[in-house]
């Protein structure tokens, strides 16, 4: 879909990009990563001709970009940047249809598109369409930025640290949504970041650059397991095994048939129930399946309800979302000293849980780094 052939960009004496050759297949997410000044942003900006290469050729969909009018080319390549760059004098809706307007879509089609895209990025259309950018939080603005990039349904998305300007929590949420959206849309995405975890989480392939040169271009697993050189090894970090966990989603490995009890159950019934005999810890859910807490069967007082023994930890802090990665789950477990952690959906409904052995298994036989965490985990509540 996108092919770079010996692309070089020279600024005076400095080589920003040095004979870069890269082939990005359609429907894949290619993350360009490297230390600042490595040429990743320059590379991205050459793809839509915001920067002209000194030499070499760039092909998008088999067409040499040099032969296209820059404006024409750019309208076919979605563009999202770290600073978002929403037009402050236009509403969210008007911002989103920037490119459709350039392409002279009719009004009904644009209105429908705004609604569709706001829904896609998780913002209620009726609430957000008429807002102005200054009324948005950082995370909301980034979502609108992504919606705007997707507006004309371009086959290619160019994203320059699109989640760079938000707090870590919002960033993780945006990443999860990006994964979800990309699963449906299957765009060809070129994504610039300097965040290794983000790259590992989002990439189909990572292109690691340094000093304008490509160091390695491979899948995240390949890059983690077989770094091409010392720089790649060091850049990806010593905790490579831990980073691999960033590739595994909690929902892929969680146990779904978790033992739960309703908050109205009496302690006597609980003791006699098989669940309390088999499992020491039970999850407590309310009428609509929302996680209320958990308790140790041994702590149950005679005649008292499970609430008397319940561990009062807020699920919002001590449970993970189903689209979180195992890495997040593990760090949460270490933080709270749990050996397993509940998995909930957006409304806090219990979906399952993940236990430390599951994570160890996901690490594979080859690694021992994280097994050490076993000892720290300690007993659950």
């Amino acid at each position: 879909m996108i092919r770079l052939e010996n692309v070089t960009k020279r600024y005076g004496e400095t080589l920003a990009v040095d004979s870069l050759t890269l082939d990005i297949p359609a429907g894949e997410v290619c993350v360009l990563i490297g230390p600042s000044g490595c040429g990743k942003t320059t590379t991205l900006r050459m793809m839509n001709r915001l920067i002209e290469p000194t030499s070499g050729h760039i092909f998008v969909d088999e067409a040499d970009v040099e032969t296209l009018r820059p404006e024409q080319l750019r309208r076919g390549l979605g563009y999202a940047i770290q600073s978002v760059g929403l037009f402050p004098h236009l509403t969210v809706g008007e911002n989103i249809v920037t490119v459709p307007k350039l392409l002279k879509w009719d009004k009904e089609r644009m209105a429908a598109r705004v609604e569709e895209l706001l829904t896609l990025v998780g913002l209620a259309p009726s609430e957000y369409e008429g807002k102005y950018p200054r009324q948005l939080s950082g995370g909301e603005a980034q979502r609108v930025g992504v919606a705007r990039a997707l507006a004309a349904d371009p086959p290619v998305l160019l994203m320059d640290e699109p989640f760079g300007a938000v707090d870590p929590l919002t960033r993780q949420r945006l990443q999860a949504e990006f994964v979800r959206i990309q699963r449906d849309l299957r765009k060809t995405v070129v994504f610039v970041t300097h965040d290794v975890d983000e790259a590992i989480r989002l990439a189909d392939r990572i292109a690691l650059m340094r000093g304008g040169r490509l160091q390695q271009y491979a899948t995240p697993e390949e890059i983690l397991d077989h770094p091409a050189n010392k720089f790649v090894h060091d850049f990806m970090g010593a905790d490579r095994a831990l980073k691999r966990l960033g590739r595994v989603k909690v929902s892929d490995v969680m146990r779904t048939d978790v033992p739960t009890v309703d908050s109205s159950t009496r302690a006597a019934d609980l003791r006699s129930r098989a669940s309390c005999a088999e499992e020491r810890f039970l999850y407590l859910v309310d009428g609509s399946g929302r996680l209320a807490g958990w308790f140790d069967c041994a702590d149950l007082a005679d005649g008292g309800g499970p609430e008397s023994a319940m561990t009062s930890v807020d699920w919002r802090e001590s449970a993970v979302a189903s689209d979180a990665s195992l890495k997040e789950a593990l760090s949460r477990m270490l933080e709270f000293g749990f050996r397993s952690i509940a998995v909930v959906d957006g409304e806090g409904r219990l979906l399952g849980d993940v236990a430390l052995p599951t994570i160890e298994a996901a690490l594979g036989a080859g690694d021992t780094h994280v097994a050490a965490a076993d000892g720290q985990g300690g007993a659950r509540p």
Partner: protein
Amino acid sequence: MKRRWTGPLLAAAAAGAFAYVVSRQDWWAAALAGLFPSLPQTVFPTATVGELVIQHLEVVGISSALTIAIGVPLGIWVTRASGKDFREIVAAGVDFGQTFPPIAVLALMMPLLGFGFAPAIVALSLYGLFPVVSNTVAGLDAVPASVLDAARGMGMGRWRMLRAVEIPLASRVMMGGVRTSVIVNIGTATVAAATGAGGLGSPIFSGINLQNGAFVLEGAVAAALLAVIADAVLAQVEEALAPARA
């Protein structure tokens, strides 16, 4: 978006009241006669206050229109790639245009353009350029780079960016420059009477020559009121151009 109507209504009411006061020649005559009881003549005889205000507005209107017609494109041009190199020269030029006394420009223009309207227009237009050009440049400079990058990256052409993004975002600051220019122009335009262009400077000059304080006051008060009213009206225009708010 809610728009407040009190501001525009007040400005319109003030402008209406001003027009009415100006049209009441008898009020002016009575007031000035009361203030200067010893003077034989207390009201400028050649034209009524209303006529003088209209003349004045003609001079100000035409020269300010010229100032805007020259200043805004000039300001835009020096922020484009093609005019970037001229930015310093233009800045120095308009700065000089404002520091150079307009009465001297009038004197220098007279041999070229003769007596009357034309030299006044030229002098005033040049004199008012500075705030228009500098605010146009400042407004365009203040458009965030990220917004421009996004606009360009999404495939907007240069004209489109200027029209749909840069000018709307800069318009308030630009309008601020226009406002300053017009207000200063209203005061300075009294000088234009020296070349026979008429306006509220006429009674002032006449009053100086005849040592008649009433004439001077008549022109000065009317010009000052006009400036205050124009400022209020233009402030409303500026406000209307402000980017949308919560």
